[in-house]
Structure formats: structure tokens, C-alpha cells
């Protein structure tokens, strides 16, 4: 990534912000070492705890601002699950609420200057997406037994077409965790890299006003994207959950 020829003083390092470093000492990263990923995941958990536990601890009848934000998030996810996955999907509300809150808070905290975005790593989002994939598959087989396989057999299609559609459905089923995780990580990584590139352009005097306006605009866009990607992750989890609960097309 490094551009060695820094002749005109313009050096781009847009991907340096995604490096994982140990915070104490500078040895290699072990599984137990305290890295910047650990720090920002911990801060994410603290922020969620502050919003949902401390913010609603008074349980006022007329909610104050923090409590109403917490209630808004709760109701938003609850209604989304009801709409997409149906009434019996509401049993799995805690899982989806946890995923949504974790992703939305790590996206928002990553937008702070000098922060580290944990969700920009495919390793992090891959674990979340694999968790969804495995739990949904196990749930489907536990609920319907081998009848869950009818999710691949589209009975509303004409009979000669069904084996071909079944093949496509099998492929698209197993590609789900891949697209599910890379969508989130790619959006986060690309947005932050674009902000860094424009920040490097701000050092050039001729285009620095344009670059600073562009950073502001892209930052506003990134705030939107941070929320929408968390929403899309949660809503796709609901779609997969609906497939597991009602596999018959």
C-alpha cells in the first residue's frame, strides 16, 4: 500500500487506519493481547450498556431523552422482526437486537476521529455472519427436520425448472454468510478509506477547500451508511430467520 515516491509531499496511507496493533508493548499480536480492536469493542459494549441499562434504569413514565432513544431502538427492531419474520420470529428478538446494537454502535464509534472501526474487518463481521448462518440452519433443521430442505425446492415453479432452481438456491444459500459479512465490512472500509483519501488531498493548497467540503459531505453520508448497514444486516438476519421458520415456498 505504501507509496514510496513522496516527491511532492503528498503521501496516501488510506489503509493504515485498519491495522491491528497491540496497545501495551509492541510485540506480535497474540490471541490474548490487548489490541485496538479489543479496546473499541469494549467501548462499544460500554456505550450499549450506558444507553440500554443506565439510560432506562429510572423507568420514568415520561421518558427523558436517553430513555426514549433506547425505547425507540427497541420498538424499531421489534416492529422490523414482526414485519419481516412474522409473529413467531419475535422469540428470536434478543439475538437480532444484540446484533443490531453491536453493529450500529461500532459503526458510529468508528466515525469518531482517531477511532478504530471494528466492523471494517471481515474477521469480525464474518464471525457475526457465520453465527447467524449456523444458528439459522440449525434452527431450521431442529424445527422441521429434513423438511427444511424444501427451502431449496420451489414448489410454485414449473416442474422441469425445479432442479435448476434448486441448484441456484443451494448456491445462494451457502454464499449467504459471505455476502452478509463482506457487505458490512466493505462498506465500512471503503467509506473510511475515502475520507482518508480526501484528508490527504486537503494538504494540497489548490484543492484544499474542495477537499474539506468533500470530507464534510462524505462524513454525513457515512453517518447514514453506518446506520443503514446495521439495519440491512439485521433485516437480512430476519429474512434468513423467516426461511428457517417457514421453509415452504
Amino acid at each position: 500500500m505504501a507509496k514510496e515516491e513522496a516527491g511532492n509531499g503528498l503521501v496516501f496511507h488510506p489503509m493504515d487506519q485498519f491495522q491491528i496493533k497491540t496497545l501495551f508493548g509492541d510485540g506480535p499480536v497474540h490471541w490474548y493481547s490487548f489490541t485496538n480492536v479489543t479496546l473499541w469493542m469494549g467501548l462499544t459494549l460500554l456505550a450499549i450498556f450506558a444507553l440500554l441499562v443506565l439510560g432506562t434504569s429510572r423507568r420514568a413514565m415520561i421518558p427523558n431523552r436517553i430513555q426514549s432513544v433506547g425505547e425507540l431502538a427497541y420498538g424499531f427492531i421489534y416492529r422490523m422482526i414482526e414485519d419481516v419474520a412474522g409473529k413467531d420470529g419475535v422469540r428470536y428478538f434478543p439475538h437480532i437486537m444484540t446484533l443490531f446494537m453491536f453493529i450500529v454502535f461500532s459503526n458510529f464509534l468508528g466515525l469518531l476521529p482517531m477511532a478504530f472501526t471494528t466492523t471494517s474487518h471481515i474477521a469480525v463481521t464474518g464471525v457475526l455472519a457465520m453465527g447467524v448462518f449456523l444458528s439459522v440452519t440449525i434452527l431450521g433443521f431442529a424445527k422441521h427436520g429434513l423438511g427444511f430442505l424444501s427451502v431449496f425446492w420451489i414448489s410454485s415453479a414449473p416442474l422441469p425448472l425445479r432442479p435448476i432452481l434448486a441448484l441456484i438456491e443451494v448456491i445462494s444459500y451457502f454464499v449467504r454468510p459471505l455476502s452478509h459479512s463482506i457487505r458490512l465490512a466493505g462498506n465500512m472500509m471503503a467509506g473510511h478509506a475515502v475520507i482518508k483519501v480526501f484528508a490527504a488531498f486537503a494538504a494540497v493548497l489548490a484543492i484544499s477547500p474542495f477537499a474539506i467540503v468533500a470530507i464534510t459531505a462524505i462524513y454525513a453520508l457515512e453517518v447514514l451508511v453506518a446506520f443503514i448497514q446495521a439495519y440491512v444486516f439485521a433485516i437480512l438476519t430476519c429474512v434468513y430467520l423467516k426461511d428457517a421458520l417457514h421453509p415452504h415456498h
Partner: protein
Amino acid sequence: MEGDIVQMGAYIGAGLACTGMGGAAVGVGHVVGNFLSGALRNPSAATGQTATMFIGIAFAEALGIFSFLVALLLMFAV
């Protein structure tokens, strides 16, 4: 310099793979544009369908993600 033709090919291929993301952009724009034209005809039905719109966006985007994945693999894995 010589002997790096494989790496050159990988970088060119990564750049070409990124054109696939333009297709995802067209697809997402198509989904949202059609949603908006339908929503302006019947605004009362629009609020119930925003979730469907986002699901459609996600599915249209998924295929662009695969081209991004190919670009990443060419850059870092090949």
C-alpha cells in the same frame, strides 16, 4: 521489473473486477427509483414497503460484493 507480469495482471484484473460494482450501483438505483415512483403514486402504501425495498437493495448489492471480493482476492491472495 521483469518477471512481475503476473502481479501486473493481478492488479489489472483487480481494477477490471471493480467495474462489476458499477452494475451493483445500477441495480440499487433501479430498485430505489422504482420504489420511489411507486411510492409517489400511492404514498399511503409506501411506509409498509420500505423493509422490502431494503431487502431488494441488499440482494442487488450482493452480486456487486462478489466482484469486490474478486478484486480483494486478486490484490491480497493471488
